[in-house]
């Protein structure tokens, strides 16, 4: 059985590959600063552009419910959209980055070019391998 961690890893790999800047938010992010608690969804903030939607959906559609129209609508209205990891039923809520936000998400590529103090780079040890995000 695939786990929420498998889904999370898959999303981060995809965002990295497409160079879509992102950062964690919500209860999972707050766990970093306090007590680790279970959650039934993980929130991410992503700086997704309209021209990246097709590729994002193409990358994720096998393992995730990722509705192209819903994502486009979210972009147009500045709302969030959800990705459901089919094998685990775990939900990921993607909030779109707004230019007025004080913290700015950052892509791995951007991080390699400059230091961004608002982004915490983490080393996560998964059961099979180490994933850096």
């Amino acid at each position, binding site marked *: 059985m695939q786990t*929420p961690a498998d889904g*999370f890893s898959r999303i981060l790999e995809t965002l990295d590959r497409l160079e879509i800047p992102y950062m964690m938010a919500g209860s999972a992010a707050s766990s970093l600063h306090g007590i680790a608690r*279970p959650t039934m969804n993980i929130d991410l903030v992503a700086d997704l552009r309209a021209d990246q939607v097709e590729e994002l959906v193409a990358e994720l559609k096998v393992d995730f419910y990722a509705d192209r129209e819903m994502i486009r609508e979210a972009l147009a209205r500045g709302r969030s959209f959800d990705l459901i990891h089919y094998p685990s039923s775990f939900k990921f809520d993607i909030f779109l980055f707004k230019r007025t936000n004080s913290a700015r998400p950052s892509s791995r590529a951007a991080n390699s070019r400059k230091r961004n103090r608002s982004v915490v780079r983490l080393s996560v040890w*998964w059961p099979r391998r180490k994933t850096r995000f």
Partner: protein
Amino acid sequence: MEHPEPYTDTDPRAMEVWLDLQRRMPPGEKIAAVLAASHLVLRMYEAGVRLQHPEASDREIFLRMAARHLDRDVMIRAYGWDPDLHADSGRRI
């Protein structure tokens, strides 16, 4: 350190040890712990559904488990399965 409200049933000495472990845990391990705990919750949902529906197929067990934490609208959109058509789905109201 004052104990967080949800943990007042924990012995203060045990609590201090546990909080210290949490403080020492690297951020990546914390996220991994969150995800592992979330997976455990899903498995517990699944076990509960199996008890309620011992003759259900694995697919039905999965859908009923998912319906315990996903909204009806999401279940229909993602899995094409309407929890309301299964009156005993155990979905949150």
